[in-house]
């Protein structure tokens, strides 16, 4: 699987009924289209490479080593049945990916073989992907040092989903010629803030205050939908979204 092949995947298959992960799982049951499953899996991996990389780094690997291992890991995931071997009882994409990763790092032989086989093959296209979707995720130093690698993985996962949705929201605004609106109002998505000056924003955007309030509200609603849709891509059934979100909230709040 090369990044070019990944590019052929439709940009946003956001229908809940067939989440990407369900397509992947269906293929494991020999019920689905294998090529579609591979593309869906590649698209998921392309989005969620950062948690994998962060986990490997947190396990004490140097940055260049972690980059090589990340490449090797994804090539193994995409070429083989490693996800199935990781947990026959299946589960969410996130937990399966983490288990596969843990097994992979624990098994030195796999690692060496993968490295050999990987050769010039690359999955993660660092520069391109980071330029296209830079991350601004930050955590406090103390927590980065104290949290176990698994928690780093989960939190980085949550951030990836949240950033992905944010980027999609920006693109939707841009598609309507209103990226500037997103740039100005995007900071107010999270919660009611005391210091929001609608008057000032109204002046900046040249629309009445009431409109600003309405746009902020609609941006929040849309963001919520996009984030839920994103999380849905990683679970088997749409009903699992809330459970997965709760799990991620717990990971952030734990300890």
């Amino acid at each position: 699987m090369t990044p070019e092949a990944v590019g052929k995947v439709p940009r946003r298959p956001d229908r809940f009924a067939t989440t990407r992960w369900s397509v992947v799982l269906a293929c494991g049951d020999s019920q689905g289209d294998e090529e579609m499953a591979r593309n869906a899996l590649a698209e998921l991996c392309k989005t969620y490479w950062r948690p994998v990389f962060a986990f490997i780094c947190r396990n004490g690997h140097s940055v260049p080593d972690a980059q090589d291992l990340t490449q090797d890991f994804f090539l193994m995931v995409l070429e083989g049945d490693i996800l199935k071997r990781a947990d026959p009882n299946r589960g969410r994409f996130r937990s399966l990916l983490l288990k596969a990763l843990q097994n992979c790092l624990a098994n030195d032989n796999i690692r060496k073989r993968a490295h050999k086989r990987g050769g010039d093959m690359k999955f993660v296209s660092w520069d391109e992907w980071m330029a296209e979707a830079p991350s601004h995720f930050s955590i406090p130093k103390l927590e980065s040092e104290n949290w176990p690698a698994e928690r780093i993985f989960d939190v980085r996962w949550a951030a990836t989903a949240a950033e992905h949705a944010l980027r999609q929201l920006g693109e939707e605004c841009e598609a309507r010629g209103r990226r500037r609106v997103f740039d100005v109002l995007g900071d107010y998505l999270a919660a009611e803030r005391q210091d929001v000056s609608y008057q000032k924003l109204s002046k900046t955007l040249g629309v009445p205050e009431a409109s600003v309030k309405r746009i902020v509200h609609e941006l929040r609603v849309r963001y919520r939908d996009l984030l839920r849709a994103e999380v849905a891509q990683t679970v088997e059934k749409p009903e699992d979204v809330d459970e997965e979100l709760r799990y991620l909230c717990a990971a952030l709040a734990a300890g």
Partner: protein
Amino acid sequence: MNNISDCMRIESDVTPCEQCGSASKIGRGLCLNCLLHRCLDANSGNAENLYEALNEVDVRDADWRIGNYQILEEIGRGGMGVIYRARQRHSRRIVALKRILSYQADSQETLIRFRREAEAAASLDHPNILPIYEVSESEEGLPFFSMKFATSGSLLDLAPALRNESLRSVALMAKVARAVQYAHFQGILHRDLKPGNVLLDGRGEPLVSDFGLAKWLDISSDLTRTLTIFGTPGYIAPEQAQRSAANLTPAADIYSLGAILFDLFTGRPPFLGEHALAVIQQASEKPAPKLRSLLPGFDRDLEIICSKCLEREPRARYRFADDLAEDLERWLEGRPIIARPVSPPVRIWRWSKRNPKLAGSLAAAFVLGMVGVIAVFTNSRLSSIVQNAELARHSVVVTPFEDLDELSTSSNSAKAATSALTTALMQTNGIRASSSKTQVVDPWSTEDWKKIGESATARMVISGTVRRREGKQRVAIHVIDTASGKVVSRWLGDPESAGEIGKVLVKQISEALDRPPANEVDSDLVGGTSDPSARSYYERGKEFFFRHNFADLDRAIDSLRTAVRLDTNYAYAYALLATACQLKSLLNADGPWLKEADGAIAKALSIAPMLAEGYDARAGNSLYRGRARESLDDFLTAYELEPGNSRACARLAHGYHVLGRADWSMFWYAKATRRETQPFYADNIGDIWTDLGEYNKAEEAYNTAAIFQPDLPVSAIGLSRIELFRGEFDKARARCEQAREKYRSNPQLLMIAAQIEFFSRNFGRAEQLYAELMKGDHAGGVDYHGSVRFLSATGFIHAMIVTADGKALLNEARTLDQKELTTAPDNPARLYSLAANYAALDDEISSLNALESAIAAGWIDYRSMTLDPRFDAVRATSRFEQAVANLQQATRQMADRTGK
């Protein structure tokens, strides 16, 4: 983990969320926890509602476009420019876009200048230079340019993580230096190299940004702007604050590279100050602090490399960024660096400002050494190179081969080899060969190769040497890449005929030409180490070795032994161990030391058969064993392998000097001096002039030595010896005593002091001094000059005064000489010493026979002969007188030849 990728920024100081107290944020101040919570248990909305709401806003994105780019976000802002992440509209490529803010729209001329410079920068194509995609103006006429979006920040962000990782810092900066050299060769100076301008891609590879564009972009403070200095205080070269931009040379960028290195190692630029002006003032008034004054115990070679970049005098810095890269790469590979520890050039420039007249005469004496190596590159000169730099990819130019037997390029065999190779290459398809038309004498440096390559528009220069060796023709050939000045291929062998030279080499040269530039490395150069602890022992060993005292020499040997134990394939360490062991045997004529050296040399050469240092060490062993003639072959091999190596030239010069070929010796010292930035061999040159009776020239050389080698008493020794020969014993004695106060424990100074007393027949004092010397080495000690064995002189004095043990001591000395002669029968110094012993023992015939043998083997110092009291018994004989007369005539002839 935040350092290479943007995966996770780790902040030491974060404001927790007002709502939930969590401190994990995804940018824009958005709290991750709050975002997730808001999405729980929600009903699905309708996207159309958002789109309707958006339509209420009458702000067109067109305002948010520059040229053909959609602005995505602002990522940086400086005094004069803003940087955005942007997307090119049709290709959808993500770029970084820099817009100049304070450009004065009324000046068309300024706009044209900006475009010209930005387009020049855009023409740079190097893997470690941030590519510029487009230079343009926005609709309002504001200039901007787009470039690769570097994803992993700059050295500014990476620096804290690099603090204790010298290896990574050095590897990174070596690449940066190569990139800077590439730009220099294209005629573009950077003028504002600083950590913030060295960006990093996703793999952590450095990308130098803003070449030549400093003045259009961020200027750090109003103060610097009013001074019209372009650059960033702390990293800019002192001359950048004083000269107009047009007069800057590549040396300014090299200074900045040094300042960045300094910052990476210490966490701060070399100079700090409350404001920009204070920093600049300090940089131009004070020498940069030594790295190890801030980091005691830090690597000595890295300190030397940094200091060489940070010299205030531009000409004292590395001449090319490539030379800096070379040293950094050498350090990484555990090979010896080229930069020298002391910085006498600055000393001499400062000093010559105070003593212009004397400095002038010194400069004349070292015209070969000084002028040859100083390259002043102006911007315009670089630009002219750019115009000529369209070097044909498959073109080579052959420079005249050097005949090492004739010291000439016009001998028959030199011409035959040159033309055979040129012809063979000309007949090869796909190669455009020519012979060099330029008159570059003794080419060896990057600049020489560039000059030759440039004038012939050739990509590669081929140079070589020939000589007779064991009845065959020995040929050495080097293929040099014109752009980098690097040897990309070399060959050493004994071809049967001149025609074969061409055949053998055509294939090799074709391969070198086909290789892409990135692979142009010295592939046959093995012998470094990848083991960091072996390297650190080697570095320690080298540090001790260069302290030149005997206590540290033992430490050097210990460290080097450990280095080769840790990495048994570390050829460089073996070679240096051998050299250290040789030095150890200098005062203690101890067989085991030279034996250990033999072992280390054999090992070094079996690992790296093309290691010049190995042949140099093996030659050294022959020399130390008194077999100078034998040493020449290995010294020549070392030179053939590395013609740019000054040490090989100097050691050859020494070999020829020992063999009485003062004229050839001078030729090789001149070569050695040309290859050094400083005349390190001034004292040896002084010795030759002394032997040739040219005392005035010798004095000039020793005076230079005093400036360039202030840590050694070489000048005092040389000058007092001249005074001794002139019969000015009191002056000689006073000079020695004065020097001994400064260089208290130097054994060579003690030797010359003893010799002065002995030759001036002040026997009481001479005996005391020789007794002191013999404490260090009873049996084997011999004067460096004049070949007086301590034992023999003591025996002679005893025989004159008390006679009790005098004769026995003289016989002992004679036996030692004879024993050494069994292994080195034509060692001139030993034959001479034997002659003196026989004379002291009143054996006239044996003495004169030995003396004549010594002269036949190469002894030319007839002045010591006329003064040495031990020859008193034979002095009046006609054979002795004749010998002196012959030597006088021979040295006069050599002096004439050398003078020419």
